[in-house]
């Protein structure tokens, strides 16, 4: 087995008295994608900044592309691309100028910098907007430009800090496709995200981080299994119809559907995908039941946190008692 492209051991960081990161271990095999999943303030950016040599940890060590982050930061910088949480583009330069500047700063030479810029703009579908000022770019275009700028030197390791936060679905999917292209060409990616779906789309493995600690690690499937995955949720107007719905849903799984009498809603873990949805829909139609609402509810970050820690990510902002709670759950999570 070759050594991992990114590995970190015991990373800790305090800001003043505030422990932002505690004893974080990570390992990303070369050519794979690790998703670092966590809510606001979990320590995702702190982790990325340490690995990208922008921040010195209080304790721990890390290597990136075979180079020690603390002892050889300059060597690390030659081998990484970083796309920060907020697109780092110069709004008063055109897209082309942004990328050419990076090329020149990387000493490609003016000519080669121009060629490389044209290549990247093409690859990231920015050729038409290449000579417009970046301040007129949409959020999605900025992100793409930012990603392109981080790839000028063809780095083998790429850090993406919340690459699609704030983007609409179309832009998000475009960006996902572009990240996948990089992965296909052999780039190792560590990406942070607040969306389970994003980790699911892009990552081979997911590490869940909360309050500066890793609380779980596994493939997206393992994680979703633990969370319960997507659920099919059906609401009806009449209480009498609810029984029909419940019976129909029960046929999907060994598990009993969850029923809420007040909202007249029944739901069940969805395993059979679109076929299951179609069969339930047909069954209800045959029985003459007109659902008020018929929806697939995707597992959210909150579901992950609820399942892993027993509290939702929003509630994790509270004080100490929950910190202990979290520690207890952490052991549980790791023993799974």
């Amino acid at each position: 087995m070759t050594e991992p492209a990114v590995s970190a051991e015991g990373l800790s960081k305090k800001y003043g008295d505030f422990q932002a990161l505690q004893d974080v271990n990570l390992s990303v095999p070369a050519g794979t994608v690790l998703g670092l999943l966590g809510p606001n303030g979990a320590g995702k950016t702190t982790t990325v900044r340490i690995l990208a040599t922008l921040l010195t940890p209080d304790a721990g060590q890390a290597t990136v592309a075979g180079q020690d982050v603390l002892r050889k930061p300059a060597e690390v910088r030659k081998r990484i691309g970083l796309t920060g949480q907020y697109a780092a583009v110069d709004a008063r330069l055109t897209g082309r100028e942004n990328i050419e500047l990076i090329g020149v700063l990387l000493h490609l030479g003016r000519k080669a910098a121009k060629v490389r810029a044209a290549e990247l703009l093409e690859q990231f579908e920015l050729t038409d907007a290449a000579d417009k000022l970046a301040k007129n770019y949409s959020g999605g275009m900025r992100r793409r430009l930012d990603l392109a700028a981080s790839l000028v030197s063809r780095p083998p390791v790429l850090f993406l800090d919340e690459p699609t936060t704030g983007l609409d679905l179309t832009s998000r999917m475009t960006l996902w496709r572009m990240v996948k292209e990089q992965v296909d060409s052999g780039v190792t990616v560590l990406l942070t995200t607040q969306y389970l779906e994003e980790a699911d789309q892009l990552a081979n493995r997911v590490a869940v981080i909360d309050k500066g600690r890793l609380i779980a690690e596994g493939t997206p499937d393992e994680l979703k299994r633990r969370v319960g995955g997507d659920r099919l949720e059906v609401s009806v107007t009449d209480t009498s119809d609810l029984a029909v719905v419940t019976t129909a849903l029960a046929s999907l799984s060994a598990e009993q559907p969850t029923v809420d009498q007040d909202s007249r809603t029944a739901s069940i873990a969805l395993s059979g995908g679109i076929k299951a949805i179609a069969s339930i829909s047909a069954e209800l139609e045959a029985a003459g039941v007109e659902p008020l609402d018929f929806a697939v509810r995707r597992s959210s970050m909150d579901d992950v946190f609820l399942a892993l820690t027993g509290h939702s990510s929003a509630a994790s902002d509270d004080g100490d008692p929950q910190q202990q709670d979290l520690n207890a759950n952490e052991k549980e999570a790791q023993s799974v």
Partner: protein
Amino acid sequence: MSEVITDSFALVGRQMRHIKRMPEQLIGLTILPVAFVVVFGYLFGSAMKVPGGQSYQEYIMAGIFAQVMLSTISTTAVGVAGDLSNGIVDRFRSLPISRTSVLLGRTMSDATLCTWSCAVMAVVGYGIGWRAHEGVLKTLAAFALLVLMGFTLSWFGALLGLVLRSPETVSAMSSIIVMPLAFLSNAFIPLDGLPYWLRTIAEWNPLSTVVSACRELFGNGTGATSDALPAQYPIPGAILLLGLMLAIFIPLASRAYQKAAAAR
């Protein structure tokens, strides 16, 4: 070393593009100096008398030049804080480029803007009757000294921007810092009226030394001098003081850059 130079020039190119894109910035860089020369040089200059009978208008011009150089502190500080808050500093820091290049690119382009301001002020000054009497070389030497001061203050501005981090804080703070530098100096008033201790402070103010050096090089009359060293030898004094400031600010700013993180 040569890489530091090429990198810095690439970044100067970036700044010059900004100015091309935002001509209003260049207008600002032109209007302020013109206004200073007209208001202080022409209006006040005609209304006041300097002891010793020399023309206040000639006396004050070097002060105005130096005063405008002071504004470089906030120009650079705001620019650096802006790059910090929109992530550009993070991007540069994650690239294998030398730390000095990024700051040198910034300070060199802001010094270039100083050259522009000086040129504008010289022309307007000439228009209202200001003259240099010591020949072309000494006149150019005076402007070189002013631009060197702009460059030095730009490094101080870079340090300020990296430490204060948010552009808003920077704009608020830089005027507070500039104020005593500007007024506790001989830029607008002869210092012989001040109490001894205040006068000593004002004479050791690098701004006063540069202003005295320029007055000497322009042949504009230095006014009464005291026995404070920088007042007696203004030209070597100015070069030494600016050199000393560079020797302090460059390493401090580079270190701040190394640890720079955007304000939260």
